[in-house]
Structures are given as C-alpha cells and as structure tokens.
C-alpha cells in the first residue's frame, strides 16, 4: 500500500511493513525532548510511578529555555529540579544557561535530530524538525515521562495534506510569510490530526531557516507534524552536525493525500496575522495604520541567524521609532555569537534595540517584554492568542523579521518595501 513520507517513517519505527491512517501504533523513538516547564511535570510523574531509569541517556534532551535565566524563585526551583534529574540520570544533552538556546533552534543546530528519525518533545513546536525530513511531534509531559522510561510512544497514524510549493519568492519573503499564508488558507484546525507534507520545486528556493520556520508552525494549523523532503540543502545542513547514519525517506508517488494545497511562492506578499488567531492573516501593507508599542524579534520560529540578518539589513543606519520598545533575542548561543561577529547586534543596539541572551521570554508571556493592558506588539513569534504576551487586552501581530524590523522603524505595522522607498 502506498504511504506518505510520515507514514513510512512511522512504519519503520513501529517495526511494521506498512501502516495506514487511523491505525494505533507504538513506535521507537530516536529522541525525547523536554524544557524547563514541561520536564518538571514529567519528572514528577516519572518519580511518582517509580520508573527506574531512562531508556538511553544519549537520546534525551532537556533544555532550560522558557523562564531562563530564571525569572523568579518558582522558575528557579523548576530549573533546579531539571538540573538534578539530568545529573542523576547522566543525561548527555542537558542545556543550561550559557549553552542553552531555544530548544527547536538548538537541537537541529547541535545535530541532535537527523533525517528519517522519530522525535517527540514535550513542547508543541517540536514539529520544527520536520524541516530536516524527520518525523517529530509535540506531546505532553506524561508522554515525555513514558518516552524517557521506555523509548517508545503511542501514535495514531495521521493522514496527510500535500502542500505543493512552486515558484521563487521575492525579496523580503521568508518562511513565516509562507506558513502564515498557508494557515490563513486552511485555518487553525485545517490540518488537525494530519501531516502537512511539503513538496514541489519551490522547496529548493527555501533556505533551511525558512523550512524550520514553516515546519515550526505546522501546529498552528493543528497538524501533528510538518515535513519536508530531504534535498541538497538538508544534507549540507546536517554535514558536520550529524555524525551518525540517517535514512532518507520519500513519499510514494501514489501516496494517499486528503487534499493538495497549492502555493505559488512568487505571488506571496509580506503578511501579518492579526489578533487573536494565527489564521487571521492580511498583507502587511493593508494594515499599515496600526500603531505599536513593542516589537519582538526572536523565538523558535524566527530567531535564527538569517532572521537577524534580514532585520539588521532593514534597521542598519536607522533608529527605532520613538515610543517603541524593540527586543531582539537570538535563539541560541551560537546564533548570538555569529550575530555579534557579523555586526548585527551592533546594528540593533545602535538603533536603540534591546538585545537579550537566548530565551523564550516574551514569546509565551514569561518575562523580558510583557505587555500592559491595551498594548500592541509586532512579534516574529508563532501565537497571538488572548493574553499570550501579557494582559488579556493586549494584542499581538505575528510577522516575519522583515515586517517586524520595518514596523520597529516606523512605529506602526509596516511592510519592508516602505522602508526601501524611503519611509524613514
């Protein structure tokens, strides 16, 4: 029976010749991930049930990224609990302040995920690694605890939607514009319980950072996972990072897809997702009369080096608008250092931005940029739900780094073209 790329990976990890949509399976895992919020709940469960130890100390990653450097005493206790668990169980891939980055930027960067692998993470944006041609999906803390103990997880085999990308994107169009456009087309539950499988000659036109941003937000369409084919760019990215054998899977030519969504990359314009759903998308230049209080450039969606490069290109030699607080957060220590070496951080600071050590921080309303009542932020993050970044009456407009940087300069939602046309 013909299978999708996701189904093939799941079948192999379940030790089955084939699987079909809807089937319940138990699959072997190549990596189990948790963070400083979800790991403590998993540890409590792990200990409460007297589970004796982890299945493989090299196949668990614990990253302290959400409330770190610790924002308060309770957060510090949670980090401490993770740290002690990691030490006690000899967890190889434990990342604390100073080495850590936002988990979904960090794991691929450190070579902890490779094509064809099966990964669960107690964080919904674990779907990010689909960019590498891996099956990866977000689960909860109990799944994490069970995964750490057994190296396995139960899954319902998903059906799939095929997203065919064609054409070449114009300047300023990045992965965020692609994925927000897609979510605007299919809605926040348009791919619920399904895989999003990206195909088409447009894939080659997208950088790995673009693909990470797209796979990252598969969950915002309700998908179980998003996955890209493995091509030269993927292999080049893994080279030097992944030092183990990996397997490249391809969907069968006659794989069953529930439907196909076509996106012509050459037609895309910079978009924003207006409050309070990621599907509430509009072209950035059609919402240009909205004044803003804050801009956040960072997160597991758009805190990578090319995102900072794009923002720096727009901000260089300009000043951020009066009354706008601009916060830039490189996603990992490596990105932070590269952004420093390449002069981006200097550009940001000179323009009047605040630059932070890697953290999730404001993305989930944790710390480092919380909004007061009625305030508005343009953010390169992935969720604009009510209260996500502060007071329930505050508003988040989601955008890529180009729109966020242009908005920072003009003090209102703006498209990058306005800056190019001398809008400063």
């Amino acid at each position, binding site marked *: 029976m013909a299978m999708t790329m996701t189904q093939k990976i799941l079948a192999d990890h379940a030790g089955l010749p084939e699987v079909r949509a809807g089937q*319940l399976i138990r699959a072997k895992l190549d990596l189990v991930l948790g963070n400083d*919020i*979800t790991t*403590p*709940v998993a540890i*409590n*469960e792990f200990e*409460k*049930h*007297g*589970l004796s130890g982890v299945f493989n100390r090299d196949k668990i990653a614990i990253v302290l990224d*959400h*409330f770190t450097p610790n*924002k*308060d005493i*309770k*957060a510090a206790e*949670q980090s401490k609990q993770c740290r002690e668990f990691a030490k006690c169980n000899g967890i190889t891939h434990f990342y604390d302040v100073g080495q850590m980055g936002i988990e979904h930027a960090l794991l691929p960067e450190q070579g902890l995920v490779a094509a064809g692998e099966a990964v669960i*993470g*107690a*964080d*919904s944006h*674990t779907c990010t690694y689909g960019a590498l041609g891996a099956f990866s999906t*977000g*689960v*909860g*803390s*109990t*799944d994490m*605890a*069970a995964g750490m*103990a*057994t190296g396995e997880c*139960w899954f319902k085999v998903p059906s799939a939607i095929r997203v065919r990308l064609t054409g070449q994107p114009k300047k300023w169009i990045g992965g965020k514009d692609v994925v927000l456009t897609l979510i605007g087309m299919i809605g*926040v*539950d348009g791919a*619920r*319980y399904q895989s999003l499988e990206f195909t088409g000659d447009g894939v080659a036109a997208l950088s790995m950072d673009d693909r990470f941003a797209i796979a990252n937000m598969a*969950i915002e369409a*309700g998908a*179980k996972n998003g996955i890209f084919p493995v091509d030269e760019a993927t292999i080049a990215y893994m080279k030097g990072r992944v030092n183990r054998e990996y397997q490249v899977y391809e969907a069968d030519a006659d794989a069953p897809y529930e439907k196909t969504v076509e996106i012509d990359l050459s037609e895309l314009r910079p978009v924003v997702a207006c409050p309070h*759903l990621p599907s509430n998308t509009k072209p950035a230049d059609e919402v240009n009369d909205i004044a803003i209080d804050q801009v956040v450039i960072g997160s597991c969606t758009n805190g990578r080096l090319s995102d900072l490069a794009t923002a720096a290109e727009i901000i260089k030699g300009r000043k951020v608008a009066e009354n706008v607080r601009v916060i830039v957060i490189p996603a990992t220590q490596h990105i932070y250092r590269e952004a420093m070496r390449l002069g981006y951080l200097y550009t940001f600071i000179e323009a009047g931005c605040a630059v932070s050590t890697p953290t999730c921080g404001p993305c*989930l*309303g*944790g710390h480092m940029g*919380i909004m007061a009542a009625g305030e508005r932020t343009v953010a390169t993050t992935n*969720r604009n*739900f*009510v*209260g*996500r970044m502060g007071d*329930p009456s505050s508003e988040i407009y989601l955008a890529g780094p180009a729109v966020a940087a242009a908005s920072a300069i003009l003090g209102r939602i703006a498209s990058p073209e306005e800056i190019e046309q001398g809008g400063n």
Partner: protein
Amino acid sequence: MQANGTVFVYGDNVDTDVIIPARYLNSSDPKHLASHCMEDIDAAFAQKVRPGDIIVGGSNFGCGSSREHAPLAIKSCGVSCVIAKSFARIFYRNSINIGLAILECPQAAENIRQRDEISIDFDSGVITNKTREETYQAEPFPEFIREIINADGLLNSLSKC
C-alpha cells in the same frame, strides 16, 4: 463509568493559553493551576466550578501549546469530562494520558447550553441532557485508549505491564 454535572459552555478554539496562562506555569502544583483555570476568558470559573461539572467547547478545543498543565488544571478543578465538537490533538492525547475523560460529539456541543445538567455514560458514549430531555451519541473510546483511561493514565497502564 459515569459522569454527572452542570455545564460550562465555551466557544471555538479555546486555547491552552486561556485554559492556563503561561504566567502561572512557574509551578505545576495542581491546586495552583486549578485556581487560575480559564481565568482569561472566565475570571469566575475557578470559584464557580463544582466537582463533577462538565465543560463543553466548540471546535479545536485545547489548541496551542503542549502544556499538560492545561488538562491538569481542568482535572484539578474537579471537572469530570470535557465535551467538544473537536479537540486539538496534543490536548486530546494529554487528557487521555492523565486520565481526564474527553468526548468528541458535535451534536452535543451544538445543543447543550450554559448551566444544563447532563450525564454521560462512557461505555456507550451516550450523553443525556437532563435539562432539555435530549440525548446525544458520542463515539466511545477505542479499546487501546479505554485501557489507559481505566488505569487512570498512561503511566499507571505502563507500570501494570
């Protein structure tokens, strides 16, 4: 297995950020989570809810983050079941994994109103609306999932085998 209670009705796309806002995730203590449950869309929920009460949502209930704190907050409030037109998938599996009963039933989600009294028979999937004298049929759980719920969660089911 049966549940009986008064209903709290919410709309579509109730996300995990409103079920339990991230600002409270610096602790996973069930009592702490319960006291802030639904706070951003229904400030009085934590005071009003009684053991056994039932939440009814629209489509895509529980969308957003993977935080198990969300079903945990709901369960810790004493809620006996969440019924919705459809659930976001991580919320669905988390609820099952921690032993919070949830049922997908579009017909029930459309017809049940605020403060209705309902009862649920989990074995048959029949939901009875005592206030309106109506019944709705939900899909009963598949065997595999029933085993997890009956064991009161995934880890209990693991430690049994």
